[in-house]
C-alpha cells in the first residue's frame, strides 16, 4: 500500500528466553480465563432458554402452556442425557488419570467420551422424528424445540472439544517423541494440559446444566 507499510518488513523482532516464558504464561492464562469466560457466555445462552421456559409457563397464555401435560419422548431424553453425562464424566475422571501420569488411559476415556457424545448428537437429532406434538401446539412444545436445537449445539461442542484435544495428544506424542505430555515443560505440553483443564471444567458445567435442563423438559 504505502512505502511506510513496506518498511514494516525491515524491523525483525527477536525474543529472549524470558520473553518466551512470559508469552507462555500469558497463553496458559488465556486458556484458563477463556475457558471460564466461555462458561459465562454459555450460561447466558442457556439462561435465555430457562427464562423463556418459566416465563411462558407462568404466563400460560390461552391455557396453552402445556395442554394434557404433553411430554417429549422420555426414552430419547434419558438416552441423550445419560450419554452426555457419560461424555462429561469421562473427561472428568480421565483428567485424574492424566494427572497421575497415565496418558493412554486418559486417551481411552476421552475417545469413549467422543463416541458417547457423537451418539448423543445423533439421538438428539433423530428425536425430532419421534416428537409427539406439533412445534407450535403449546408453549412447552416450542421451548422443547428450542431446547433440542441448543442441545445439539452443546453436544456438538462437547464432541468437538473432546475430539480435538485427544487428537492433539496423539499428534504431540508423535511429533515430540520422548516428551511426556503429562509432565513435560515443553510449551506445547503445558498448553495441552491447560486446555485439558479448561475442557474438563467445561464438561463439569455441561454435566450440571444438562441435568437441570433434562429435569425441566422431561421430568417436571
Amino acid at each position, binding site marked *: *500500500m*504505502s512505502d*511506510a*507499510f*513496506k*518498511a514494516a*518488513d525491515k*524491523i525483525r*523482532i527477536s525474543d*529472549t*528466553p524470558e*520473553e*518466551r*516464558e512470559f*508469552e*507462555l504464561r*500469558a*497463553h496458559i492464562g*488465556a486458556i484458563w*480465563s*477463556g475457558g471460564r*469466560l*466461555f462458561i459465562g*457466555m454459555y450460561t*447466558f*445462552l442457556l*439462561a*435465555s432458554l430457562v*427464562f*423463556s421456559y418459566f*416465563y*411462558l409457563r407462568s*404466563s400460560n*397464555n*390461552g391455557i396453552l402452556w402445556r395442554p394434557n401435560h404433553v411430554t417429549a419422548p422420555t426414552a430419547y431424553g434419558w438416552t441423550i442425557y445419560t450419554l452426555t453425562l457419560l461424555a462429561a464424566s469421562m473427561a472428568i475422571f480421565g483428567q485424574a488419570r492424566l494427572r497421575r501420569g497415565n496418558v493412554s488411559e486418559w486417551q481411552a476415556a476421552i475417545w469413549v467420551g467422543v463416541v458417547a457424545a457423537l451418539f448423543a448428537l445423533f439421538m438428539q437429532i433423530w428425536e425430532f422424528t419421534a416428537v409427539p406434538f406439533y*412445534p*407450535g*401446539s*403449546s408453549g412447552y*412444545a*416450542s421451548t422443547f*424445540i*428450542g431446547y433440542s*436445537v441448543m442441545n445439539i449445539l452443546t453436544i456438538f461442542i462437547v464432541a468437538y472439544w473432546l*475430539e*480435538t484435544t*485427544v*487428537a*492433539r495428544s*496423539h*499428534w*504431540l506424542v508423535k511429533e*515430540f517423541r*520422548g*516428551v511426556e505430555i503429562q509432565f513435560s*515443560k*515443553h*510449551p*506445547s*505440553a503445558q498448553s495441552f494440559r491447560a486446555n485439558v483443564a479448561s475442557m474438563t471444567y467445561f464438561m463439569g458445567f455441561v454435566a450440571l446444566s444438562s441435568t437441570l435442563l433434562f429435569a425441566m423438559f422431561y421430568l417436571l
Partner: protein
Amino acid sequence: MTTSVEAGVEAPKPPAFIDIKPRRGQNGWLSQHVGTAALGGFLGYILGHWLGNFIGSSYPYIANSGQNSLAVLLALLFMVVGWLLGIGALNHPIAKILGREAKGEVEYTGWTRYFRYNLDHKVVGIQYVVGVLIFFFTGGLLAMAIRTELLNPTVHVFSADTYIKIVSEHGTIMMMMASSVVVGPLGNYFVPLMIGSRRMAFPRIEAFSLWTFIAGYFVIFSALAYGGFPTGWTGYAPLQTQAGPGMVSYLFGFAVISVGMMTAGFNLAVTIINYRAPGMTWSRVPVFVWSIIATAALLTLASPVLTAAGLFGLLDKTAQTSFYVTEHGGSSYLWQNLFWFFGHPEVYIMALPGFGIVGEIIPVFTRKPLFAYRIAAAGMIGVALLSFFVWQHHLFQSGIDPDMRPLFMLTTELISIPTGFIFLVGMGTLYRAKIRYEVPMLFCMAVYFNFLIGGISGVFLSDVPVNVTVHGGFFVLSHFHYTIMGGLIFAFFGGLYFWLPKMTGRTMNKKLGLWHFWTMFGFFNLTFFPMFIIGLLGQPRRVFSYARNLQTLNEFSSIAAFFLGASFLIFVANLMWSQFIAPEKAPANPWDSLGLEWQTATPIPHYNFERIPVIMTDPYHYSEVGAPALADFGNGPPVHASSAVAAAIEPEQ
C-alpha cells in the same frame, strides 16, 4: 519441529502461540482471499436455497403459502458458512480435528493483505475501519431517504409500507455498526499496543469476529431483496411473526452479528486480562482499555441472549414453533424481554468505548493528568454491571405489571450516577486547562456537549410519568441519537483523527478536518435538537405522515440532515486526499501523547515491540516535573517521554 526431542522452553521451533517469527504467506490468486469467500458465499447461498425449497415442497403449509422462510434461512446460513470457508476462517478449526496445532501467523505483504484472513490485529483493525464505514454509509443513505420522506406530511415519496421498511433497515444496520464501531477498529488495533503486548490471545477468533461481522452486513442487506421488514430495529412480536421473509434476514442477521460481537469481546477480554506487559498493573491500564474490557464483558454476556432470541424467532418462522405467538401458548412479551435484556447492555456497548476514547484523548490536549482516573475505571465497571438490571424501562408503556415500574425507574436513575461520574471525570480534566484545539480534541468536546443533552434526556425518559407522554415518539429518537451518534460516533471520528497517523503513517488534513468537524457538529445539533420538540409535540416514530403544524420543524430538520450527510463527504474527501492522493508523512508522535501505543516504531513491526516493555507508571503524567519514567523498552535507558514532551510544550505557568 520434528527434531525437538528435548522437552524445554528452548525448543528449536517454538509453537505458534509463543513464536515471534511470522511465516511468509502465499500471496497468489489461488490462495484464499475475499474473492474465494465471495464465491463460497454465493455457492452456499444457491445450495441453501435449493435445499430449503426441496424440504419445503413436502410441507403443504409452506408450499401453499408462497413464502418459504426456511429456504431464506438455509440460503443465508449456507451463505455465511460458505463465506467463512472461502476466506479460510474454518481452516484451523478443521485441522484441529486431526490434532494439528495452530501454525504461526502468516505475514502477508502488500495491499492484498487487507483482503485476507489476516491474524495481525493491526490489519484486522484497519479491515474493521473499512467494514464499519460501509455499514455507516449504507445506513446513512437510508437516513437521507427517511428525511426526504418527512419533508412533507402529505406529499409522499414512498408508500407507508416502503417507508417503515427503510426506517427498519436504517435502524438495524446502524445498531449493528454501532456495536462494533470502536471495539472492532480501534479496540483491536490499539488494545495490544496500549497494554504492551505483542499479540492477541486468540488471533483466529479476532479475525473470525471481523469476517462474521462482514457476513452480517450481507445478511441484513438481503432483507431489502426479500421485501424488507416492518418492525423497526427492535423487531417486536407479533408484527415480527406476521412479517414476510425479510424478517428472517433481520433475525438471522442479528444472530450472526451477535456471534461477531461475542467473539470480538471474548478475545479482547482475555487479552487484556492475560497479556498486559510486566508492570502494567490494573491501576496503570489506560482508560481506553478499561472501557474496552467493560464493553467486552457486556459483549460476551449480553450477546448470547440476542442469539437465543434470534434463534427462537427463526424457529417461529421456519419450524412453526410459537415462542412469540400469544395465541399458541407463547408470548410476544418474551421477545420484548429477551430483546431488551440484551438491548440495554447493548446501549452501553455503544457508550462506554466512546468514553474510553475521550478519556484517552483529552489529557493529551489539555496536558493534564486524567482527573480521577480510578473513578473513571470504577464508573465503567459499575455501568457495565448495572446495565443488566434496567431493561424494563423500555417496556414501561407496553402493559407490564405497573408495580414493576418504580423498581426499574429506580435502577435506571441509579445507572445515571456512574455515568455521571464518567462525565465529571472529563469535566475535571478540562477544568482550568489550556486546551489545544486540534481536530480530535474538538470531537471530544463535542461528545461532552452532545452527551450532556443525550444523557439528561435519558433521565427524563426513565421517569415514568414523563415516559408516558413521550414514549414511542421523536423525543426518544432524539435521545438515543444524541447518545449514540452524538456520543459514540463523534468519539469514533475523534479517535480516527487522533490515531490514523499511527495506523497509516499519514496525518489527516487539518483544514478539511476542521470543516468536517464544524459541519458535522453544527448540522447534527440542527437535525436532532428540533426532534426533541417534535417529539414533545407528539409526533410518533416510524410513521411517514404527521400533523400539518409540525411541517416547519420537520423541514428544518430534514434540510439540516442533508447537510449533515454532506459533512461526511468532507470526511471521505479528507481520507482520500490525505491517505492516498497527497499523503503527508506523519511525525512519530504528532500530538505528543504519553500513550504506550505512540512509543513503538512507526510503522509498527509485526509483533509490535522490539522488547516486551516493562511499564513503570500510568500514561497520564502530563506537565509533571520529575514525572517517573514511562517504561523500559529494553533498548536504551527507560523512556522519560513526559519530561521531554512536557518541556517542549508546557508554557510557563
